[in-house]
Every structure is written in C-alpha cells, then in structure tokens.
C-alpha cells in the first residue's frame, strides 16, 4: 500500500513548485515525518477555543 506521505510530497512539490529531486525524496520524507510527529504532539494538547496565538497583532 502506497505511503500517503509519499503522495503528499509529490503533490506538494508539483502544486507548490518545490524542487524535490528523486534522490532528495527520502531525506525530505524523514524530515517531514519528524516535523509532523512534533506537530501532532502539540496538536493533541487540548487548548480552549479562545486560546490566542503567541504573536498578537496590534493595529
């Protein structure tokens, strides 16, 4: 079964005009896996709906 992350990398490279040469793909995938794992760790932490991001824009 194809890994959806491979599909994401290929689609994102095409859609967003990102250069991913075939021999770079494994390293890009490894880095993306690590970053997404960190992101998931943050996302699973429950915050209230009204939580504000750290940078607050001041008009």
């Amino acid at each position, binding site marked *: 079964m194809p890994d959806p992350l491979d599909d994401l990398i290929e689609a994102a490279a095409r859609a967003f*005009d*990102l250069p991913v040469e075939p021999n770079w793909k494994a390293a*890009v995938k490894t*880095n993306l896996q*690590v970053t997404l794992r*960190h992101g998931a*760790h943050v996302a699973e932490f429950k915050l209230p709906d009204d*939580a504000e*991001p750290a940078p607050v824009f001041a008009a």
Partner: protein
Amino acid sequence: MDFTWTSANAIAHAVHDGQARARDVVAGALARISARNPALNAFTAVVEQRALDRATAIDDARQNGKPLGPLAGVPFAVKNLFDVKGLPTLAGSKINRDRPPAAADSPLIERLEIAGAVLVGALNMGEYAYDFTGENLHDGPARNPHDTRRMTGGSSSGSAGAVAGGLVPLSLGSDTNGSIRVPAALCGIFGLKPTYGRLSRARSFPFVGSLDHVGPFARSVYDLALAYDAMQGHDPDDPVCVDRPTEPTVPRIGKGADGLTIAVAGGYFRAGAFPEALTAVERVTKALNVTREIDIPEAARARAAAYVITATEGATLHLERLRARAHDFDPAVRDRLIAGAMVPATLVNQAQKFRRWYRDRVLTLFKDVDAIIAPSTPCAAPMIGQNTFLLDGVEMPVRANMGLYTQPISFIGLPVVAVPVPLTPLPMGVQIITAPWREDVALRIAHTLERAGVAAAARPAI
C-alpha cells in the same frame, strides 16, 4: 604583552591606563587569527585595515585626553550573519556570497565600537543558522579548540571557537533554538542569550523571526555584562526590540547569590542527559546549595512546538531561494527547509497557541523561584562528522537534537546565561534561566559560580 587569554575588561583597563596601546592589542589578535585560524576555522573574513585604523584612533584619542569607552581597544568578531560594512552578509551560505556588500554595520557592532571595542572580522556559522553542529559545507567545519577533531556546536560555531581558542576575548552570535548556548557549552565559554526583544537584530540576517535572539560570548561573566550593557537600548529598526529603559548589569553582578531562590529543572531536563551533563548540573547546584527540583510543565511539547515553528518559518524565509537555487544549499539544510514548506498551517497555528499557554505556565514558576538550572546540552562535543547519538537508548540525529534542553527555553524568550563547567576531558555547559528582563539575576549567579571556581573557561592546550 600577551593578550591571548586576557579578559576584555583587563584589556580595556590596560588601554585606559596606558599600559598597552590599542593598536598593539589589535595587532596581537590579528596575528593570533593568522596563526590559529587554519586549525580552528573560526573566521571567514578579517577586516585588518579597518581594525588597525580603529585601534590607532583609540590610541590617538587617549593621547589627546579624550574619554575612552569601557571596551577600549578590545578586539571582537561577529557571526557572519551580522552586517559588516563592505562585506556580503553570508549567513553561512553559498547563495548570499552574491549579495552586495553591506552598506552599514549592524547596530550592535556600532554600539560595541562606541564603547571602544574594535571589530576584527566575521565568523563561521552553520548555513542560515539551521544547525547545532558547527559543520558548514561551504566554509568547512569550525573546530573545537579543546579537540580540533570535535564539533564546536552551532550555529554560532566560529563565535564560540574564536573566543575559546584565544583569538578574541569577545564575540557576537545569534540564538534561535540554542545557537549561543550549545556552542558556548561545547567550547567551554560563557554565553548570554538575553530576553527576546532585548537586543536589536536589525541588519542581521534572520532565520526564524519569532524566535531569533542575539547576544555575546566571552571568557568571563564580567565581560559578558560589559558587552551586554553596551548593546542595550531600543532600536526602531527592529520591530521586536522593546522600548524599555536600559538596565545596566555590571553594577549588580557582584551582589552574590545570597537571598536568591534557585531550583534545578527535573523530569525532561534529566531524561536523555549523558553522565557528564548530570555531573555539570550537580556541580553547579551543589555550589549554590540548590535542593529544590521543579518540573517545567510540558517542556517536551514546547520543544516540539519550537521545532514546528522553526521548520515552517525557516521554509517561508527561504522559499524563493529553494525554488531558484536548491543545489546551492547544504543538502542537510535544504531537505529540512523543503519539508518545512509542506507542513500544514493548522499545526503552526496550534504551536503558536501552545506557546502562549506554555509561557503563562512557566512564568508562574518565577513567582516562587528567581532562577532555574538546567543542562545546556545532553553531551559533550561530538566528533565532527558524527551524525547520530544515543538519547535515552534511541539513536537520534545530532544536528537536530543538541538543542534538546535549550529549545523549550528560547521558545518563550527567557534570558539565559550559559556557564561553562570545566570537566575533563571536555567542558560542559549549564543554563541559568531567569524570568524575562532579569539578565542581572542570571549574571549574578554566573558570577557567583565563577568566583567559586565552579564555572570557568578552561584554556585549551593549543
């Protein structure tokens, strides 16, 4: 006179008193750079004529009875992401070599020179500051003066190597996730990462604007404080730099640590630490009579959030360069940045929301304590070329993980003095972390440790 291991403060006093000429001090530094840099690879550019002219002007000023600054005649150098008039600002990259020379110095260089210091050159660094190793594909690795086969740490690699190697007594670096504290630890010198927004980042090449800090390296706490005080002050050219009165630290660092409540960070800040990191922390806590251990809540998640913000903001900064000149990046940096461009915005926004939650929780800790002690790195300097190490029994990449203990702190902009603990065979570093704007407290504690002989910049045998 030999100024190889002389402090900035002692040099300035010698110049003030007429015991030394600034020109001789600077010429000595230039000679050491010439002799030692082939082995250390700390410098990428030397501004010899500028430095000699500047030093001569200081000597002339003294001769004419004009007042000299507190850093008179002190040679210093800067990470090559700071603008130096007449040089392209490399930021450790190949691509930036095509930039025009900077039209003006960074304001921190200007402020140090107003205080009498003399810029002698620009320093090696990890490409675009996305690095904890000090390895650089284009300029070669900076080498650790304690063992030139080993890493300096990064990304302010040359900044630490130049000070630890006795080339200059003072340097500047930047710290997004640990890039002052990690190399200070591995090279066995002092480093100050001030509060986020304290020192101007104007005319320096950015990495992650919401996490970027700048600060000094030195071989003594007094020198750190001298440099920090000279650089404080609002700068409208950096929108993050706060409009806050300067708070001189030099008059306060000698107050000792009596009356301060200090705790050591447990949990996350012990997990994964090699024995030498635990030994360094133990020496510091013992000297300060620290018995209280506290838990910094959700530190692992804070580090994860910093990782996400770094990857994505870094990718945003370099997107056009990735599209146009991907082959000119170090592949280790390029592939991380490309991956960062593919991370969903939902995760970045959540990381920024978590950042505020975490900040609020950590700041409550400072209602009960004045400072928190934690290791700077999990281990001593790895060998150059070493790609992985074992953290808690799991093999992990060195490049991404040397900042394990620094990332949760810079994530919310807390000030830290990184102190060196001279272990054998290699030095280690310990972070003294305080509440925002309390650099004075961190410097006081560092000075106490220095006076007790627990923290010291050991002179390498080179």
